């Protein structure tokens, strides 16, 4: 069931008890978890928090803790499963679910009380009606027994069976339509921040977490642009409100300010040189085709036209002329359209502390995402990476480490994308394109998780489309495979990226992979909550792909 | 102190002559001051185990009372926090004393033995027991491994006088004057007969040798800061 009063039906229910919080290993979930932790700290609510990445992580965590706990909070995991059945939940355990993964399983939505879903459905989301998917079979059967005449019974029974078959067909169709596409709803961190606000415990630190999470969604482009823009505007009203109440005295500079203003959308440019940052940002790289000589020349042209000396652009941004730095957004905005760089300068959040240089929310998102999926050569466990990413959001030394890893990751993604294009490794399979990261390549170590795979996939697809003469390219999705870091000999990860032309950000690969696997009996693990990524045994790759092609044709 | 909010219990701590009535809040204030002094003084100060025992007793009682409260009551958290703080002060105070007792064991045992007045005793009965056991364990250890292997009778002795570690009474301490104390003698350490007399005025702060103000500290004319 959906919770309508989040304080009464959620927060009040858990106060005074110890709760288990299971947090999916993604940026939004981490931010949400941190907001919850801050609330729990303030209200002395004892908790245990564990990260989960896969379905089996979730199952193990619940199994090992369920003896000692009566409330479980799931953040960004589990919403797409029938939780009561999957987790074998005893009736005394209540689950509070806050998940951006869609579609939510109908059993969770129509659970009486045991599963409580925080948040609401978007206006454009539709859920099959209760009567269309659930049917009280027992009562109908008992009715049958009350009947007398034999012939009438069989007649009515036939009638009923026929009706039932129809109903089931309709039901299956409804459910298939409902679950065909996987997509993401609004950020959980925003939901949690609103909870904090309702509890009058909203601070700029918590707001910043919600902002970083939103910025992460933008980077991963998992939602429609206009929805993100609306969310940003919402958060900006909170910024204004918090600053207004905190700083009545305007003469003194605020120690900690969040601003929402026009900024250049270049990856990590505050911690890099302008040239490098442009090269590694998907927007500039794909529009200018920076992996070609011509593209590079074009970039220098652009910089020259802006009046930025190349020597300045090649050194770290913080070393650039102060005047150039402050004028950069205006300069770039003026020329963006001429070079086909629409959207290069858009309003975005940044934060400045006294004695610290300004950081944008996307810097934090980049850093945390990179720490979340460290190169497999580092040998860190998922939970360790989770804690690193979580610490990185507090600023401090871990943040610096995160920025360094983010740069390395962006470089690896860029080089891999360039390899794909240079070697013509993006191949058309008919209904979709595919590309494979070769086993043994030093870059393979970096492609270790769903986020980075998504980033690589979108970058590759964008570059491919911009380089390809084929008009159809924009409407083709991409399937990316990469050796799985834990057992690169035997297993690979397969990731599906929707076509560029599709702006709804709905991904049909989850369902398609599932069907292809079951059709071919491939050895595969559909373990991720992000269902468009699966683990597949390498020997079954070709038959899996054949099935996928025939499915999607 | 907030202890007073928690309980209005009035308890008695026996002073040397007459039985005085003290509130828990006053006891806490006293212990905090003892704690400060103990941490700043180069030597061991007189023990006050009655106060400590009384405070510990209070903690236990309060904990029992709090156990009956509702878990989400805000007051509960505040009271418990206060108790934890008190427990920390007591523990830190006793730890600090143990450290000194272990370092200056033989010296303190000797000093303790010299004092007749039980109200000025350096060591509490438990501390005395601790110090004796510690001294004995070290002596017997020395004996087992070294001393009994030495034939020279005199050399084979554990010479407490020579070996005991003595606190540095000439160490300097910061102090604040609580009551006017005229004519405090500052003896000259170099031995050039340049002794000095100073008048300490209430409210003043000084840096002085511990030995010159030890008596004033005992009588409560000054406090260490």
């Amino acid at each position, binding site marked *: 069931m959906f919770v309508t009063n989040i304080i009464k039906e959620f927060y009040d229910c858990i106060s005074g008890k*110890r709760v288990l919080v299971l947090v999916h290993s993604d940026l939004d979930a981490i931010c949400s978890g941190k907001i919850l*932790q801050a609330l*729990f*700290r303030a209200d*002395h*609510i*004892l*908790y*245990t*928090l*564990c*990260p989960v990445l896969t379905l089996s992580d979730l199952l193990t965590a619940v199994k*090992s*803790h369920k*003896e*000692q706990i009566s409330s479980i909070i799931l953040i960004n995991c589990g919403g797409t499963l029938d939780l009561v059945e999957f987790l074998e939940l005893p009736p005394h355990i209540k689950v509070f679910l806050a998940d951006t993964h869609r579609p939510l399983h109908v059993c969770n939505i129509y659970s009486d009380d045991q599963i409580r879903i925080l948040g609401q459905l978007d206006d454009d989301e539709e859920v099959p009606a209760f009567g269309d998917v659930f049917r009280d079979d027992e009562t109908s059967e008992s009715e049958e027994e009350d009947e007398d005449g034999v012939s009438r019974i069989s007649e009515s029974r036939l009638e009923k069976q026929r009706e039932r078959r129809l109903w089931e067909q309709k039901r299956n169709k409804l459910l298939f339509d409902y679950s065909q596409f996987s997509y993401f709803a609004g950020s959980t961190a925003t939901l949690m921040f609103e909870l904090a606000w309702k509890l009058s415990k909203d601070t700029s630190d918590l707001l910043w977490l919600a902002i970083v999470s939103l910025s992460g969604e933008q980077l991963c482009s998992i939602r429609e642009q206009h929805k993100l823009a609306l969310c940003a505007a919402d958060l900006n009203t909170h910024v204004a409100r918090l600053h207004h109440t905190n700083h009545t005295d305007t003469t003194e500079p605020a120690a900690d300010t969040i601003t929402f203003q026009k900024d250049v959308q270049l990856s990590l440019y505050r911690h890099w040189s302008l040239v490098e940052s442009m090269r590694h940002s998907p927007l500039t790289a794909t529009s200018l085709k920076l992996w070609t000589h011509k593209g590079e020349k074009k970039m220098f042209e652009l910089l020259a036209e802006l009046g930025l000396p190349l020597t300045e652009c090649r050194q770290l941004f913080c070393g650039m002329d102060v005047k150039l730095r402050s004028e950069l957004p205006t300069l770039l905005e003026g020329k963006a359209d001429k070079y086909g760089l629409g959207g290069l300068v858009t309003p975005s959040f940044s934060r400045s502390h006294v004695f610290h240089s300004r950081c944008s929310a996307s810097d934090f998102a980049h850093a945390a995402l990179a720490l979340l999926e460290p190169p497999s050569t580092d040998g860190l*466990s998922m*939970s360790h990476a*989770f*804690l690193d990413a979580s610490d990185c959001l*507090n600023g401090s030394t871990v943040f610096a480490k995160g920025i360094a890893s983010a740069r390395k990751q962006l470089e690896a993604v860029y080089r891999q994308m360039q390899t794909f294009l240079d070697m013509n490794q993006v191949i058309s399979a008919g209904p979709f394109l595919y590309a494979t990261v070769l086993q043994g390549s030093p870059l393979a170590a970096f492609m270790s998780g769903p986020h980075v795979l998504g980033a690589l996939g979108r970058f590759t697809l964008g570059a491919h489309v911009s380089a390809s003469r084929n008009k159809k390219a924009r409407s083709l999705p991409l399937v990316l495979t990469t050796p799985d870091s834990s057992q690169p000999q035997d297993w690979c990860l397969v990731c599906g990226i929707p076509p560029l032309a599709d702006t709804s950000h709905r991904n049909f690969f989850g369902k398609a992979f599932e069907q292809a696997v079951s059709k071919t009996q491939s050895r595969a693990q559909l373990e991720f909550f992000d269902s468009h990524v699966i683990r597949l045994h390498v020997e079954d790759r070709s038959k899996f792909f054949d099935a996928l092609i025939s499915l999607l044709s | 102190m907030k202890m007073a909010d928690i309980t209005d219990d009035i308890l008695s701590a026996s002073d040397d002559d007459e039985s005085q009535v003290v509130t828990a809040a006053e006891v806490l204030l006293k212990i905090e001051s003892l704690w400060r002094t103990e941490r700043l003084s180069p030597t061991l100060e007189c023990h006050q185990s009655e106060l*400590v*025992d009384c405070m*510990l*007793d209070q*903690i*236990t009682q309060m904990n029992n009372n709090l156990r009956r409260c509702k878990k989400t009551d805000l007051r509960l*958290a505040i009271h*418990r*926090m206060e108790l*934890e*703080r008190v*427990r*920390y002060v*007591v*523990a*830190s105070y*006793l*730890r600090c004393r*143990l450290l000194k007792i*272990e370092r200056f064991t033989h010296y303190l045992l000797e000093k303790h033995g010299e004092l007749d007045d039980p109200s000025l005793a350096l060591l509490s009965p*438990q*501390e005395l*027991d*601790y110090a004796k*056991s*510690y001294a004995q*364990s*070290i002596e017997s*250890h*020395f004996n*087992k*491994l*070294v001393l009994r*292997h*030495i*034939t*020279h009778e005199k*050399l084979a002795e554990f010479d407490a006088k020579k*070996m005991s570690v003595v606190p540095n009474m000439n160490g300097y301490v910061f102090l604040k004057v609580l009551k006017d104390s005229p004519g405090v003698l500052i003896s000259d350490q170099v031995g050039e007969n340049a002794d000095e007399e100073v008048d300490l005025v209430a409210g003043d702060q000084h840096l002085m040798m511990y030995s010159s103000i030890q008596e004033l500290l005992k009588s409560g004319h000054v406090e260490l800061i």
Partner: protein
Amino acid sequence: MLGDKAFSLIQELDRSQHGTLPPFNEDAVRQALEEIDSLFQQNVADINHLAEDDALVAGIHLRHAALERNKRCLLAYLYNRLERLRTMRWQLGSVLPSDVRTNLCEPELEWFAQYSSTVARYMRSLGDGQGLDLTVDLKPPKNLYIEVRCLQDYGEFELEEGEVVLLSKDSTHFLPMEHCQHLIRQGVLQHVK
């Protein structure tokens, strides 16, 4: 030079890392004791001849200084080793890690056991026999409840009133400070900001 063997024990202590205990150097202790014995025998002999030869006095003095020095070095060696054991009792508890135990001699093990029980007896006797654990509460408490991270798979841990928490590696918990202190000291939990 006289006293060098005994002095080497002190050097050994000085060179060993702070907080570690080198193996008990029985050889050097024995050799220093032998030197003491031989110096003493010579002095006894010389004293007996003192009446005949006044010039022996200087040698007796010199040897005596060496005797005292040897004794001081030996006892300081023992004492400082005990001091390190003492620190271990307070930081690691009454059970010594095996790599420390192997470096101790029998009397040192006995001493540790005795010291350990002296400390325990004292702590139990506090507050009219209610007891007070002095090995915790090392820092002024700031919060009743603290956030901790679990650094190893520890298993189940019982809080007050029978509540049980499962401590698994890399999980984060919010628990009463009072109950976590020992596990933090033992390195099972890490207190985070």
